[in-house]
């Protein structure tokens, strides 16, 4: 009755249920095939020439700068927001969370349009600002940053919020009994304990900002050197110069891998 084949327990854990393996393999193939196709069409012989063009350099520089700036702003605003969502209770908290997550599920073009009505020349806030100072957010590099932040910040907020929820709040109690003020507890205990989730959230946020297309093109336009990011340059080049589009795509893939791979084992649970 109680007999069990040696190793039966281990084998049971390892053997995948019927159909799971083929479907998993199909999933991998579905992601891999487009990359293979891209690599197979790559103009390897004059790649360095294509990558060195001003339009590519401009777009790469702009993408890196704006994605980093957006991540910085998201960190500055997003960590406090994540703390409020994770640690406090107030009426309308779930509504606030839903609102913050909305850009994740919203089509980015709609987000870009909404940004225009808020910060455009005749926008809700942008109008008065433009009338009094002449400053205009859309169609500038800061417009790209604004669009990126709008779309990418939720990734950071959600990741950090779950990190804060998982952290043991008793460490904060211990710090309080040692005389630490609320701001000292936040700086020395809460943030360091949430560091893995903050880094993971920042990477996700940065990756999302780097790939941003819809909100950027709607709100900031497509001006080379000012608002034309890598994804916009790829899209434009596909119409006119396929080789350049592929070269741009390869650069974008290389940059993403260069950032994600070193962080993967340590900070991202993937």
């Amino acid at each position, binding site marked *: 009755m109680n007999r069990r084949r040696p190793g039966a327990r281990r084998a049971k854990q390892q053997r995948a249920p019927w159909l799971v393996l083929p479907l998993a393999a199909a999933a991998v193939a579905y992601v891999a095939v487009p990359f293979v196709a891209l690599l197979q069409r790559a103009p390897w012989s004059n790649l360095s020439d294509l990558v060195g063009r001003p339009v590519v350099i401009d777009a790469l520089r702009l993408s890196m700068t704006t994605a980093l700036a957006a991540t910085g702003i998201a960190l500055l605003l997003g960590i406090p927001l994540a703390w409020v969502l994770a640690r406090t209770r107030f009426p309308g908290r779930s509504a606030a969370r839903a609102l913050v997550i909305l850009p994740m599920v919203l089509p980015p073009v709609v987000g870009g349009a909404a940004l225009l009505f808020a910060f455009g020349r005749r926008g809700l806030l942008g109008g008065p600002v433009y009338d009094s100072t002449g400053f205009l957010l859309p169609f500038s590099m800061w417009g790209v940053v604004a669009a990126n932040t709008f779309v990418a910040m939720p990734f950071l907020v959600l990741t950090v919020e779950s990190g804060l929820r998982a952290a043991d709040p008793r*460490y904060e109690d211990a710090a309080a009994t*040692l005389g630490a003020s609320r701001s000292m507890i936040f700086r020395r205990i809460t943030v360091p304990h949430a560091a893995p989730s903050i880094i993971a959230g920042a990477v996700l946020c940065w990756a999302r900002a780097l790939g941003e297309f819809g909100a950027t093109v709607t709100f900031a336009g497509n001006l080379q050197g000012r608002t034309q990011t890598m994804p916009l340059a790829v899209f434009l080049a596909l119409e006119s110069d396929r080789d350049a589009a592929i070269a741009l795509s390869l650069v974008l893939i290389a940059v993403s891998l260069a950032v994600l791979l070193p962080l993967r084992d340590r900070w991202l649970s993937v």
Partner: protein
Amino acid sequence: MLHAAIEVHLGAFRLDIDVDVDDGEVVALLGPNGAGKTTALRVIAGLQPLDNGRIELDGSVLDDPAADVFVPTAERPIGVVFQDYLLFPRLSALDNVAFGLRARGHGKASARNRARDWLERFALAEHAYAKPRTLSGGQAQRVALARALATDPRLLLLDEPLAALDAGTRLQVRTELRRHLATFHGARLLVTHDPVDALVLADRLVIVEQGHITQTGTPAAVTARPASRYIAQLVGINLLHGTATGEHTVRLDTGAELTVADPLPGLDIALAIRPQAIALHRQTPDGSPRNAWAATVTDLEADRDRVRVSLAGPVPATAEITPAAVADLDLAPGISVWATVKAVDLTAYER
């Protein structure tokens, strides 16, 4: 000194206890899990507000809802050793101890210097730069104690200070903790569910069941006259006093000698024996158990599926055996028996 009149409501649970701790006194809140002991500590530390009552330390009021007084945790002169110690995992032992000094305004260098003194006092100097996860249970406990004492509190709270340790190190750490507690002169309040911890560490026991105090008194008084069946079970431990006559032998005040497995921690010794550890026989026991004595049964008390047998003789003690064993041995008051206990079942500590 601490005066705490605590009333807290947590859903259907109501904690309602009064605890006073004098300077220099160690009081143990003893009771089963869920009795409200940890909540009492949290309330005293200010991590949870009172619903009713008043907490006063050295004459200043820390919490009094009726008078609308509440001193935040960070401003209370109270050191806490938490269950599992809660050492900050990213900081070294030294920076853990320095944390409270930094929080109270010391510069980095001065905080570290004082923290180093504390580590030395607790024989931890060589572990100053160790991260908490590399410390043993006993070392982590000493770091936690040093961290709690470094800010010079007037009250020390300890929440299950020995629960995180395995049985092997527990005995030794308990003795060390007792010694270290003695160096702190303020009031000390510890929470435990383990009667032996309470008996060894505390001057006075406060027994809490389901949010209420059911008995208070010195360990000797509570063990001698447990106020309820539950307390009898909880602290129905034999406490004997004697003097060390060798590294492993104790001469009781009655003249009997008992052998202990671990080296004795001092000269003036208290021995704790769980009643379940005492075996009874009608004949002279076979072999040569080192702790055997002749005793007279003075009383039998049935307690659910157990019978507590009171024994008179050179080792006055209570044994706890099954009703079947009572029938087997044909026990009744006045009957002579042999009692034995293994050396490993004796817990010795310095009085």
